[in-house]
């Protein structure tokens, strides 16, 4: 399926916007359409961009105060009466603090509670490791019934928000604080459970989730320009359920795989891909992300560079990987 990438996205003047801004617009739009949608926030309404919904639908906005356990369990109660509750906080606290409540009252209870975790990843920046949530993908991915989505940019976040408003399932939406490049367009498709091939290649398949997909596009360009490596780039906004068909097809075509995420690779997106490949199509795999360590304070761009998650830094690692690994052929 054609993705309709924006033009000239690899230029320095690429337009940027925080992914969370798209969530704010998407929630308001979903709320305009369906009056069963309610929004709950734990004292971070503007930060998580829920204020757009609150301003438009004040009677359907509920302030819970700084109480994340209550946030999701009240939401489960609202869902029991037929409402579609969206809950928002920082990912470090929801789902960081209230995992068991999500497990029992949303997942086991099969209530369509929407968990919106903003400020995920190291790109949170100066707030430091306490607030840079890296374990959320692992925490949410392991839960039965839970859908896990990390949109690539603000436009996709808007679509993903509207999609989970209608999927009748507990869902986790992972958002980032800092501005990141917009690479998709209004015409780009978004469907829960679908991955999208953004660039065709045959030497290595690069699977990205969240804003890391953009960095992989940059890495792929560097690989082509400087190393004659043709990398295929696949954008994987839905981490659960994984689009195994698209991923296996790209893996088969390229014979080796690299994953990238702004999260712990243990249990995270890279692990999801490792599970898939090791069971169905074993081949060389390199996982890029945070490797069993916490972040620290700094400017977002500095941190991405420091932890090797920029296009340039990843390109170097991918070259080494390609040079030192065999290429799987069926």
């Amino acid at each position, binding site marked *: 399926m054609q993705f309709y990438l924006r033009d000239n996205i690899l230029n320095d003047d690429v337009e940027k916007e925080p992914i969370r801004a798209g969530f704010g617009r998407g929630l308001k739009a979903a709320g305009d359409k369906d009056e069963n949608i309610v929004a709950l926030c734990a004292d971070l309404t503007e930060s998580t961009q829920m204020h757009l919904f609150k301003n438009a639908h004040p009677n359907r906005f509920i302030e819970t*105060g700084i109480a994340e356990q209550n946030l999701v369990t009240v939401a489960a109660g609202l869902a029991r009466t037929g409402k579609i509750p969206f809950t928002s906080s920082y990912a470090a606290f929801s789902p960081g603090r209230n995992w068991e409540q999500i497990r029992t*009252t949303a997942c086991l*209870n099969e209530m369509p509670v929407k968990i919106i975790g903003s400020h995920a990843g190291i790109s949170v920046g100066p707030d430091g490791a306490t607030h840079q949530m890296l374990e959320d993908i692992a925490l949410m991915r392991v839960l039965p019934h839970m859908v896990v989505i990390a949109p690539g940019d603000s436009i996709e976040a808007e679509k993903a928000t509207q999609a989970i408003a209608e999927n009748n399932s507990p869902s986790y939406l992972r958002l980032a604080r800092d501005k990141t490049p917009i690479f998709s367009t209004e015409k780009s498709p978004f469907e829960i459970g679908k991955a999208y091939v953004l660039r065709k290649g045959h030497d290595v398949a690069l699977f990205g989730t969240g804003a890391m997909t953009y960095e992989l596009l940059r890495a792929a360009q560097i690989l082509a320009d400087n190393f004659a490596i043709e990398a295929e780039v696949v954008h994987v906004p839905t981490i659960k359920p994984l689009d195994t068909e698209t991923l296996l097809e790209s893996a088969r075509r390229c014979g080796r795989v690299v994953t990238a995420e702004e999260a712990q690779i243990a249990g995270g997106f890279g692990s999801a891909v490792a599970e898939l490949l090791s069971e169905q199509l074993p081949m060389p795999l390199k996982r890029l992300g945070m490797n069993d360590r916490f972040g620290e304070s700094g400017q977002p761009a500095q941190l991405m560079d420091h932890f090797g998650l920029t296009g340039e830094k990843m390109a170097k690692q991918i070259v080494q990987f390609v040079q030192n690994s065999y290429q799987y052929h069926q």
Partner: protein
Amino acid sequence: MSGQLTIPQLEKKALAIRRDIISMLEHAGSGHSAGPLGMADIITALFFSILKIDPQNPEWNERDYFILSNGHTVPVVYAAMAERGFFDVTELSTLRQLGSRLQGHPERTKLPGIETTSGPLGEGLSQAAGIAYSLQYLDKNPHRFVYTMLGDGELNEGNIWEAAMFAGKYKLSQLVCFIDRNNIQIDGSTEDVMPLENLRAKWESFGWHVQEIDGHNMESIIESASMGRAISNKPSMVIAHTIPGKGVDFMEYDYKWHGVPPNKEQAKDALKKLRTLNGKITHEGMA
């Protein structure tokens, strides 16, 4: 519909439910004895007098909600549901067995009539508060109520006090809660493990209307629920003082019976004692 049962009839129901509890726990070979027996009178009052429910139509859209927050006491709820006609009493013997709808802790998706999945302590009150918020502010339907049962031990949980603040802030007047104040939890007396007193003052300071009752007196239980519904600007808390293991003298007051079932001999003994303990079970004013 029921709701018309007399006090002596309700007490007979409570006795039947206690018998069911003993039998099902003995059969299951695991589960909690003290709490369910102690709560039997309140749960009986709820299912046979207080709750607006239809066993033939568990999702009836004008029903009241009942949320069991201390989910480990669910045998008493299963017994009450069976006696009320949600399912056949014979199914009680499947408690905690593979394939049973009667899970060790209540699961909404398994058994129609169970409103939420609960068991991990401290989560029922916020779910109930969410439902009450929806009825009061979103559906604006003042005729439906949410009743919740809390254990006293679970008041150790922080989630409870988050919910207490929330319900107080939004004056959730369609929320009526009971605390099974039996003073025991697994490790011992509640006041030794983590003191709860002054419990009444705590809830009042969170903006709740608080009543204290004898949790074994049918009239008091029914009246307190009626008062809870009448309070129109606050959530309502009923601290129901109960005797853990009520009705079986060798279980009463003993925290060691919190988390264990009776064995075959003990169950036989307990059932015999339940039949003869009229002074404890039967309403004093009635023959």
